[in-house]
C-alpha cells in the first residue's frame, strides 16, 4: 500500500511540516505523533502531517529522487480521493544562489512536482505553481543541515481552490 509507506515517510518529515506555519522559532519543534491521528483524513492538516506536503532537492537540481516520488505518489492518491481540493506548489531554493537564478530554480522545482502529479493522474487544472526562490527559508542556519530543508517544493492544498 502506498499510503502506509507514505505514512512512515511522513513521520520522518513531520518535524518539517510542523515548521510550516512560519513561526519565528521554527526549526526545533517536538513531534507529537498522536496529534496527526486527530486530523480528518480529508483535511489539509492531515495532508501536511500524514501524507507529506514537501519534497527536497539536492543543490542546484530539480530532479525527484525515490523518496520524493513516494511522497508525491501519496499526494496524488490523496488528491484523487479529495477532489474538492486544488493545490499550489511552491518551489524554493536555499540561500546559496543569486536571487533571480533561484527564482528560476524554484519555478523549475515546482514545475517538476506539478508534472509528476499530473503523470500520476491529477488534473492539470487543479494544480498551479509559484516560485519563492530564496525568499522564504524555513530553516535559518547557514549550514547544509538547514539548506537541505530549504531546497524544497511544498504542495499547499486548499478546498477553496487555490488560484
Amino acid at each position, binding site marked *: 500500500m502506498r499510503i502506509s509507506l507514505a505514512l512512515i515517510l511522513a513521520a520522518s518529515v513531520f518535524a518539517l511540516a510542523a515548521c510550516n506555519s512560519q513561526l519565528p522559532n521554527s526549526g526545533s519543534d517536538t513531534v507529537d505523533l498522536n496529534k496527526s491521528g486527530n486530523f480528518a483524513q480529508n483535511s489539509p492538516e492531515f495532508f501536511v502531517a500524514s501524507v507529506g506536503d514537501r519534497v527536497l532537492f539536492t543543490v542546484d537540481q530539480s530532479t525527484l529522487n525515490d523518496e520524493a516520488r513516494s511522497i508525491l505518489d501519496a499526494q496524488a492518491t490523496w488528491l484523487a480521493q479529495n477532489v474538492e481540493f486544488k493545490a499550489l506548489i511552491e518551489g524554493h531554493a536555499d540561500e546559496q544562489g543569486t536571487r*533571480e*537564478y533561484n527564482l528560476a530554480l524554484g519555478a523549475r522545482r515546482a514545475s517538476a512536482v506539478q508534472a509528476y502529479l499530473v503523470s500520476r493522474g491529477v488534473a492539470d487544472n487543479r494544480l498551479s505553481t509559484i516560485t519563492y526562490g530564496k525568499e522564504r527559508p524555513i530553516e*535559518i*542556519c547557514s549550514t547544509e543541515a538547514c539548506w537541505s530543508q530549504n531546497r524544497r517544493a511544498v504542495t499547499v492544498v486548499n478546498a477553496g481552490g487555490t488560484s
Partner: protein
Amino acid sequence: MTVSQKAFSLFLAAFFGLAGFHVSAQTPGPLKIEITEGVIEPMPFAVPAFVAETVSAKDLSEDLAAVVIADLVGTGLFRDIPRNAQISGISNFDSPIQFSDWKAVNAQALITGAVSTQSGGQLVVKFRLFDVFAQAPLGEGLRFVGTTQDWRRMAHKVADAVYARLTGESAYFDSKVVFVSESGPKNARNKRLAIMDYDGANLQNLTDDRSIVLAPRFSPDATKVLYTSYETGSPRAFLLDLSTLKRKALAELPGMSFAPRFSPDGQNVVMSASLSGNTDIYMVNLQSLQATRLTTAPSIETAPSFSPDSQQIVFESDRSGNQQIYVMPASGGEARRLSFGEGRYGTPVWSPRGDLVAFTKINQGRFHIGVIRLDGSEERLLTSSFLDEGPTWSPNGRVLMFFRETPGANGAPSLYSVDITGRNLKKVSAAGNGSDPSWSRLRE
C-alpha cells in the same frame, strides 16, 4: 559651461569666476590624480570653513563643507587635511588666497566656499578650487542656487565638480540609490522598496512591506523604477513612477515574470518569465506593450542587462550545465559565453562605459563581486564573503555597490561599495539592512 535650464529647483549658475579667476594658461601641469590599478597615495586637500555670508547660513555652511569632505574622502582618492592642522582660514570668499599657508600644511588642492540664505528659502552656494602648488584656480568658480532642503545636493554638486576637475572623469555624488529595505527575522523577512542618496542620506520608503519586493532598477532618466513584486500573488514585474508613487503591473508576459531592466532609451523592458518551469528572456515595448521572446532554450535564461549602445544583452544561463554569463544581440539569436572560470556566475550588469561586465561569482561556498572584459579576459574578483551579490554601477563606472549578507540565524544584508580596482570597500551604514541596490545616473 552653460546656464542650466533644467526644471530642477537646484541649478547651476556658471561663470562665477572673477577677474583673474579664469583657467590659467601658465599653469604648468594642472593638478590631476590618475585613477589607476596601482596603489595610490590619496591626494591631500583642505576645505577651510565655508564662509557664512548671512547669519542664518552658519549651520548649513558647516554641514555643506562636511558633506563635500565626506564625498571626496569616501572615494579613497583624496585625503582631508583637518581643520585643526590648518594654519589659516577663509574669512572672505573673495580675498586673495595665502597659498603659502596651504602649501605649509601640504594641501595640494584647496576648496573654498561661501553660503548665503535668501528670502523664500533660497540657498546660494559658491565655491572655488585651487591648485595650491601652482598658486592658481583650477577651473571657474561656480555658484549653485537651490532651496535649503536641497543643501545636500548642492554639497554633492560641489564635490562632483571638484572630483571631475581633479580626476578628469565624471563624478557620482549627486545620485540616488533605490534598494530593498529589509526587516524582521530571516524566515519571515519584510521587504519594501526604499530610495536614498548615494551616501545613505535622505532615506525614504517607496512601498509598504505587505508583499515581497525584489530587485528594483532605475529608468535611465531616474524618474521610474522597475521591480518584481508578489503583490498579485506570484512574482511579476512592476513599474513605479517616482513622482506619483503610482505603480502598475507589466502584465504582458505569461506566467511568473521577474528580473526587469530598462533599455538605455527607456522605451523597452527586458526581463525573464517562467512558464511551465522554463525561464526565458523577453522584451516588452512600453509603448506598444508588444512582447518579444528573445531566448527559447529549455535551460534557465534570466538577469538580462543591456549594453550602453543598446545593441547587445548580457544575461545568465545554465545551458552549459551550470550558471554562466552570455552575450547575445539585443534582438535575440546566437549567444556567446563570456565566463569560463571555476564556479558559477550570475547577475551580470553592463558598465556605463561599455567596457566591463560586473557579476556575482559563487565558487567553493564563497560569493564574490567581480568584473570581466567583454572579450572574456581580465576577470577580476573585487570582494569575497559568505554572500556578496547584485552589483550596480556608479554613474561613472568607477564604483560598484552591492549587498553583503552575513551568515547564520541572525544573518542580514547590508549595502556596500567597492572601487573596480578592488580598493575602498565600505559599508553604506546609513541604509540599514538592505539588498538589491540600483544606482541612478548622475542627476542634472
